[in-house]
């Protein structure tokens, strides 16, 4: 059994305006503590400009046994990829 404090997931934003990436998790008793630990653990080498923390329990996850049903049907639908468009100049994040 996990005898530590609540588990929180940490998301770090590298640059202002960019996307938040999952960085890892921390144990903490409250949100202030979770935020500070996330800062201390995942942004010590200048990785971040903003942090989100969320209780792991609050994340709804797909089940591994549903993976075939969920994802395999997308395998052969090449026409769903927008490969026929030219990318606008300077749009790096699409």
């Amino acid at each position: 059994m996990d005898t530590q404090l609540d588990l929180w997931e940490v998301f770090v934003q590298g640059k202002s305006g960019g996307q938040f990436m999952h960085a890892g998790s921390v144990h903490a008793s409250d949100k202030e503590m979770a935020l500070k630990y996330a800062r201390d653990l995942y942004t010590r080498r200048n990785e971040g400009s903003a942090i989100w923390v969320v209780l792991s329990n609050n994340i709804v996850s797909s089940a591994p046994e549903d993976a075939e049903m969920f994802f395999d049907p997308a395998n052969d639908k090449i026409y769903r990829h927008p490969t026929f468009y030219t990318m606008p100049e300077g749009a790096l994040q699409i």
Partner: protein
Amino acid sequence: MTMELKEALQKFLLRLGDNALIQGQRLSEWCSRAPMLEEDIALSNLALDHIGRAQVLLDYAGHTFGEIKTADELAFRRSEREYYNFLMAELPTGNFAFTIAKQLFLSAYEDLLYEALCESTDTHLSAFSLKAVKEARYHFSHAADWCMRLGLGTAESHDKMVDAIHDLWAYTHEFFEMSDCDLLLLQHGIAPDQEKLKKNWLDKIGKVFMRTGFSIPQDTYQHRGSRQGIHTEHLGHLLCEMQYLQRSYPDASW
């Protein structure tokens, strides 16, 4: 700069640098021993912030000597009577509540001190303080959060926090002593008036205590001496361990 002013600045820089160094050394004692992994890394981060600060401040202090000394020389080749850190900084780590109370008192002071030093007429000091004040503000926030958690936590955590506050109170007034050096630096706009800092410090601590139900202890006997390089028995032991390598193998490198 007159000789007298240069000496005052040197003592002041050594005081700031030694405070950073000795606190960093004490905090690093938590590495691998903190109550949980996350706090272990948090405390080690705080320790490293202090060591980084010590490096810059002692390096600058080294330039005020006739023959320039490096930060390493000052850290590893001075004896306890030549150290000017606050007595509180050198006190043994104690339990977690003791460390948190120590951090609360010291970081509240450093937050205010470096904020004031941002306005120093010494451009080196003011530039450094712009960075240091951000660190100190985070350290204070870390300590204040924990002070509240321990204060409002279990009966045991509450009592340990109360004990720590009372044991450490007798080492707080020393922060604000105005020696001749401090007066001279104040006249030249290099360092702030410590009496003013004291008032703001009491307000800052009072606000944290109000949220946790602690009260400011009655003033009793106050320990002093660090302005003259007079220390508790603990500093010698700390230096003994910290300086062992350089003392046994001078100029060792790897």
